[in-house]
């Protein structure tokens, strides 16, 4: 019912999932012909499977290094290229379902068309052999800054996507960490301000970059600001009334009554109705139990789904939050206001608990994880910025959360919080082909993203990118198992 009503509103998003039902997008079920296997470890990749030039010593970078400067676009046009790309033999983490050993992810164009252990790979498909590798959905960062080349949010008529730089080095660095989708921008106000931008790291092209703009309604509702709280409640009361009028209006339209007119309302009111209908998330900051108490009450009073950022003390009131429509975004490695620094808050009780995620999971409260810093940082304290988002997720396991939930917290759960789970966050038929091939379990502290695909195109290859290509992991050196096995 909720979706039905939503469909009547003018701003419903198209449902790309329907496309997957298109019989043409299903691979033909003819007997599998043995496609040429191309191992990424052998220095070649699927989408541009050309012979790779031998790497020259850097000191001799002469004319022939051109081939390395732009591997994607320099590909010679081939006769007819299959639209299919298959990632085979890997350990596949669909997130929406159980892990598949030796699974196959079959991609057609920019969509995933099949995931499973017994998928027929169409003849002629390009194949990436992910043997001994781990295949996961691209990570979704709920809050990020600067990966589209600017740290200045677009204002007024300007749209973030219209000033994005698809060649941003920051974007490439985020991709090297497996992050394919982010939400940027947005200003929290008492009346709720629509804004922000959800985009994909389509390195090298603008096609398919924008997922949604504006991204969400950003709300400020803190304990100390009484007049702000009053404003919020007043606006929400109008939203509830407007929503009722809209329902009546659409009922009249459906009944073909004459002379019905759509109700009018302020933009802020309309935006909250969209939130109530589940079209847009409403993102609000709330760290302390006092803030959370107020937000839970707000959510219950107005039937308003809320996404609460940095809910450090959420573990104290899981029952209350579970009854409200509240999703929680955690920064598992942040203890207190002082963040990383020894400030005056450092010695104070912070309200933080390592078990927060586990308790939220047990209570059935939707939760996801964001990194402590929303930036890709080349300064400050290493290991706590956007590039270590998988470490933030892994940390929740230390507090008792399940491994499944931890991986979910930076993929599907984050996509659900942003209301984009019909596009990204899981490896399922019909979802966007945003796939990361890791050399180890994505939550392992030793793992590297080796290949990243966005919309079915290779946008990052560890081997060909200067960030990490010089790092030889134990695994790459041929060592197996744990460190003690080798000594």
């Amino acid at each position: 019912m909720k979706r039905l009503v939503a469909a009547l509103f003018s701003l419903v998003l198209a449902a790309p999932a329907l496309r997957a039902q298109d019989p043409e997008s299903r691979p033909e079920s003819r007997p599998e012909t043995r496609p040429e296997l191309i191992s990424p470890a052998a220095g070649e990749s699927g989408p541009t499977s050309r012979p790779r030039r031998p790497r020259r010593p850097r000191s001799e970078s002469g004319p022939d290094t051109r081939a390395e400067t732009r591997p994607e676009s320099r590909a010679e046009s081939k006769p007819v290229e299959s639209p299919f790309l298959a990632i085979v033999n890997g350990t596949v983490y669909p997130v929406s379902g159980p892990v598949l050993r030796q699974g196959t992810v079959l991609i057609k164009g920019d969509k995933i068309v099949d995931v499973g252990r017994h998928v027929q790979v169409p003849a002629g498909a390009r194949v990436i052999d992910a043997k001994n590798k781990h295949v996961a959905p691209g990570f979704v960062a709920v809050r990020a800054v600067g990966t589209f080349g600017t740290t200045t949010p677009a204002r007024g008529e300007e749209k973030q996507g219209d000033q994005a730089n698809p060649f941003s080095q920051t974007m490439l660095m985020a991709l090297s960490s497996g992050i394919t989708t982010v939400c940027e921008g947005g200003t929290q106000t008492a009346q709720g301000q629509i804004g922000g931008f959800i985009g994909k790291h389509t390195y090298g092209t603008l096609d398919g970059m924008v997922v949604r703009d504006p991204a969400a309604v950003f709300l400020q509702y803190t304990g100390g600001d009484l007049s702000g709280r009053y404003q919020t409640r007043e606006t929400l009361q109008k939203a509830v009334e407007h929503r009722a009028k809209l329902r009546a209006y659409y009922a009249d339209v459906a009944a073909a009554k004459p002379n019905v007119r759509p109700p009018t309302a302020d933009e802020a009111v309309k935006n909250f109705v969209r939130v109530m209908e589940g079209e847009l998330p409403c993102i609000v900051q709330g760290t302390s139990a006092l803030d959370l108490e107020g937000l839970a009450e707000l959510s219950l009073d107005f039937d308003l789904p809320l996404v609460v950022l940095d809910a450090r003390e959420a573990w104290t009131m899981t029952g209350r939050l579970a009854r409200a429509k509240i999703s929680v975004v955690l920064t598992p490695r942040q203890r207190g206001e002082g963040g990383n620094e020894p400030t005056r808050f450092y010695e104070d009780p912070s309200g933080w608990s390592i078990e927060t995620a586990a308790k939220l999971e047990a209570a059935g409260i939707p939760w996801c994880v964001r990194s402590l810093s929303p930036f890709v940082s080349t300064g400050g304290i290493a290991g706590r910025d956007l590039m270590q988002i998988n470490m933030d997720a892994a940390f929740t396991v230390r507090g008792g959360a399940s491994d499944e939930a931890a991986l979910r917290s930076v993929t599907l759960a984050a996509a659900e919080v942003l209301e984009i789970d019909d596009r990204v966050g899981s490896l399922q038929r019909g979802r966007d082909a945003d796939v990361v091939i890791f050399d180890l379990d994505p939550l392992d502290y030793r793992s590297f993203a080796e290949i990243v695909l966005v919309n079915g195109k290779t946008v990052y290859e560890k081997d060909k990118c200067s960030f990490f290509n010089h790092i030889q992991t134990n695994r790459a050196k041929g060592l197996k198992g744990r460190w003690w096995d080798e000594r």
Partner: protein
Amino acid sequence: MRRPSALLLALAFVAASAAAQDAPASRSLAIRVKRALTVSGAPIDDATILVENGRISAIGASSSVDVPEDADVLDAGAMWATPGFVHPVALAMGPSGTYEVSGRSNTADRIVAEDLAPTWPGVRSLAKAGFARVNVILSSGGFAGQSVLIRPIAKLDRPVRAADLVVAREHALCMAFEPRTTTKALWKETLAKVKKYREDKAAGISSRPESAPASRPQGESRPATESRPASRPSEPAADPKLMPLVEVFEAKMPGILVLNSAASLLHLMPILQEHPDFKPALFLQMDDAWRVVDEVKKLGYAVVLQPNRVNKPDTNIEIVPVRDYVDAGIPVALIPETNFTQQYEGFPFHLAELVRKGVSRDAVLRGATLTAAEVAGIQKDVGSLEKGKAGDVLLWTADPLSPEAGLARVIIGGATVYDAKGTP
């Protein structure tokens, strides 16, 4: 947006009579050189170039050119000759360093005419670097205005005025774009207006001007075109500001589009692709031009590049963007790496560097001369050593595309404007 840091050309000069330029010496000049790189054709060994009335009247092997008895003969038998360089996109800057537009018309024309303080050293640095024509543009947002085409002159007996340098005013239309929602909308809307105007015109629709062009619009005004709708009632009305753009569409006026990042081109590309008739040259004033070679090829535009080499980000892998563009078969005009005329002298050395990095000699020399002239829309007048073209000849002590070459003499319109030996 990276601002034109500087520029200008120094236009200017000091003294000497414009009359001497406009009416070149009636005596003809025969220049005999070891090898003439004509650009338009094969190099000629032991060549003689005959310049009469400021134009080349004959060029060929010395044995085949009849030199009039009264001609001055310049026997440079050990030297190489090339056409003069052409700079199609010199960015204009006011005398104070940065040019402030303060509520006045901001055409490059006005800058040259009113604001530049021509100095002899400035003009001399143009001449000394071998530039026969310099197209001064103004880089600012949107459709910024029209350029002024200037050339160096010989020293005058009186103080130089900017007007002494000018070959043509309102010569080319310069445009700029940086990726924003509003600038994208402006481009889309403006190009669509031009398209509609041209369609209406082709269909013979006539209508009255929407409003009389009583006041000169800021910036892009062009007196000759302002009155056009009124004087030719059979044409559809259009905003007079659009007329230069219409001329660019119709290839009657050169158009130059300044872009500052590869991302800018990706943002603008879908809009440009809707208008296949619109073929401006792209001035890629950016470090990452190498990223969009395929896109430029698809558009079919010529490009203007500085000969810099860049490193791939975060690596020491060297990239030579010019080579990428030349290899892709895109016409490449080459300009100095700097906007400071005082540093233009290094240009030939950078050209030699390009050759050393694997760009073909033909492409490099053509890029600095004929292709640059094509971008500036003056290829019928300059850019190669051909009969009928302007008598602009550079004399070099050695192969001009080798690092040891020195520019010995610069002859523009048959008159020597620079001589390394100190004369004139």
